[in-house]
């Protein structure tokens, strides 16, 4: 009996080679000119000072949402940077005035302040009949 002909192994399909476009190179950090920083700081006031502290440059290191907000409102223009529009979920803080405590009145309508006037008398009892 002739030896069975060895079947060649099925050619394993080579993994497809997917040509992926080179990922977009991250934008080069763009340093904000000093004058822009100053203008931004002046416009944003206290809050801006706090935000800018420690992150004056490069802008690429700033929180995206914050930069998006600045770009969207026109406060900050960055050459070569495209941060798009602020996502709709981003609620821009009020950056033009110092943060102030928010006082929320959580009272229900039926819990309006109310004063209840009462009275009371402590009548000292008479003692015996000795003092008349």
């Amino acid at each position, binding site marked *: 009996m002739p030896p069975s002909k060895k079947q060649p192994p099925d050619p394993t399909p080579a993994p497809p080679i997917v040509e992926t476009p080179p990922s977009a190179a991250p934008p080069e950090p763009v340093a904000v000119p000093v004058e822009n920083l100053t203008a931004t700081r002046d416009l944003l006031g206290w809050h801006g000072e706090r935000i800018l502290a420690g992150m004056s440059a490069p802008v690429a290191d700033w929180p995206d949402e914050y930069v998006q907000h600045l770009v969207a409102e026109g406060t900050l223009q960055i050459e070569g940077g495209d941060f798009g529009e602020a996502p709709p979920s981003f609620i821009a803080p009020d950056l033009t005035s110092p943060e102030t405590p928010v006082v929320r009145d959580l009272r229900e309508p039926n*819990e309006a*302040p109310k*004063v209840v*006037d009462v*009275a009371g008398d402590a009548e000292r009892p*008479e003692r015996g009949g000795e003092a008349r």
Partner: protein
Amino acid sequence: MTLGVTAVHTARLASLDACYGTNKAPNMPSSFNLRMYSADPVSGGAELGAAGGYTALSVANSGTNFGAATVVGGVATKANAVALSMAASTGAWSAGATHWALESGGVIYDTGPITDPTTGNPMTLTVSQANVTVRFGIGKLTITVPTP
């Protein structure tokens, strides 16, 4: 010897002044706690719990808070000279209050029923919500000694 009514009043007024106000006796407390009770504390009534922000009101035993005793309607009367307001409630109090007391050091010096300031009728004071301030207006918290 027969004493007149005026003399009787004088003695009763002095008695009240010896307890409250500027001319209090040296052994009287320098301050009292105005407390609320769900029943007559003389008969074992308990003070309200802390629910709803109830707390006793500290009242200095001074001439500012207690004026000189006077005769009102033929009755020697010591009254509060300023309004006494309890702390505003933060919710419902633990129970209705029917009595008040001026207490110091665990001793109740005077106590009486809570009454409607308009009618004088006894009432149960019920605080069922927040932001309620219970107030004894000027002259509405009194200690009296009836004239026989």
